[in-house]
């Protein structure tokens, strides 16, 4: 479908046009026009104004994502494997998710200080849940024939896990990861809302204080681009590294 990217661009241009028109009839404080936001974004990117913030948030996202998805994956594995652990931990897992992180900010600051640690912890906390759920589901949904094969081969729990549950569960786990990367971004930004002077979240707060809505929108666009990059990265990993696990009944 060669016209797909063309169509995509049209949609994009259409949306930006609608935005532009909507913004014309409105105060810049509420909705700045793309004709203001994009040039601002561009110049500030060139001047390097965004660079330290991008790096800061980037580090937090990467670190938080790493810790969070590792944790989510591991917890998912264990909670999937051991029903008693599942019933033991799930209340706390749900608590960790249902409680808004912003409300816990003072405690985070108390425990982890004002530095990057608390942001990373929040990021990790926000992004670990989808991975946990999907991994847990994947762990439990195993073809019984294959399970028999592994029993017959005297596979240990660990071997069954590595050679059967992981490969079979990969599509599900990866879709959890796709959700996680995007949530990680939100996590880092929300973390920076609380007590940061660097990072895209801090920029949003600062821009709000200055009522600099165009700047805020520029940051939001950066966030979107970041999200798309991370999401694309996961899909890339999936396509390149894990391709052979993504069979569907038959290879075409």
């Amino acid at each position, binding site marked *: 479908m060669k016209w797909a990217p063309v169509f995509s661009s049209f949609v994009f241009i259409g949306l930006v046009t609608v935005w532009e028109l909507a913004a014309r009839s409105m105060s810049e404080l509420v909705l700045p026009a793309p004709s203001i936001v994009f040039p601002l974004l561009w110049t500030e990117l060139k001047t390097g104004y965004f660079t330290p913030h991008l790096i800061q948030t980037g580090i937090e996202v990467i670190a938080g994502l790493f810790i969070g998805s590792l944790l989510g994956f591991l917890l998912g594995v264990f909670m999937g494997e051991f029903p008693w652990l599942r019933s033991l931990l799930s209340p706390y897992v749900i608590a960790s998710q249902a409680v808004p992180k912003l409300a816990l900010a003072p405690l985070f600051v108390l425990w982890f200080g004002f530095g990057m640690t608390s942001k990373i912890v929040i990021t990790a906390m926000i992004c670990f849940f989808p991975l946990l759920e999907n991994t847990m589901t994947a762990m439990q949904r195993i073809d019984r024939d294959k399970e028999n094969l592994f029993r017959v081969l005297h596979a240990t729990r660990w071997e069954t896990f590595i050679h059967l549950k992981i490969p079979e569960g990969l599509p599900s786990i990866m879709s959890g990861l796709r959700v996680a990367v995007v949530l990680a971004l939100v996590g880092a930004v929300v973390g920076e809302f609380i007590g940061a002077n660097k990072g895209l979240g801090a920029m949003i707060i600062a821009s709000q204080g200055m009522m600099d809505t165009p700047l805020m929108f520029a940051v939001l666009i950066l966030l979107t681009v970041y999200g798309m990059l991370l999401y694309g990265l996961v899909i890339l990993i999936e396509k390149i590294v894990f391709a052979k696990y993504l069979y569907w*009944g038959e290879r075409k």
Partner: protein
Amino acid sequence: MSGLTIDHISHSYDGGKTVLQGVNYHVGDGEFHCLVGRSGCGKTSFLKIASGLMKAEVGHILLDGQQVLKPIADAGFVFQSPTLLEWKTVLENVLFPIELKRKSTLEEQDRAKALLELMKIEQHTYSFPLQLSGGQQSRVAIARALIKNPQYLFLDEPFAALDAITREELQDDLLALCAHHQMTVLFITHDIAEAIYVADHVLVMEEGKIVHTETIDLPKPRTLDTRYSSRFNELGFVLRQALEGVPVK
């Protein structure tokens, strides 16, 4: 007592209908036993229990006098469906019983390739299971069962998806292998001729009971002549008789 003793086994799935009813049987070391019976009579259940893969509700399994509580270690298995790992190549699937525990050696890889050749799928060594035809998949499963040179073999209709000729070739190959390694085999088939050709003993199962056992007194090694011998036909007739008459479930 050496060999595999099936001691008064009864079983039902989930408390449903009884599928095995007090089955007693003995498989001596190095013997080749064929299990025939109508579809749904309990053959697969019997094999799973006898091999230690499934626990019977009642009764137990003894191997050389020791109770069997988990799948017999030194055994090769072929399930009724090929059960290959779709994300591994044919060669990797065959080597998998080894690779699960450690890296395979070059000799083992060569052995795997030799087995694939024996199974006549050496052309598909690097294919993935889903690129194979049904019969090719089941042959990969057989090669996998043989890779560790097991002492015991539990085969559930291994040749069901194969054409007559391939099947006969593989029967000979299997017999040769078993004779060479003195394997103890429990083999499910629905082909009476196949049972007679390969087995030392044939047991006929009906509604979860062993209703007939037949010692196959044909000379060994079996050859093409065996198939055309009159004793072969006689045994075929006897076993058909044993199989018939009871409605299939």
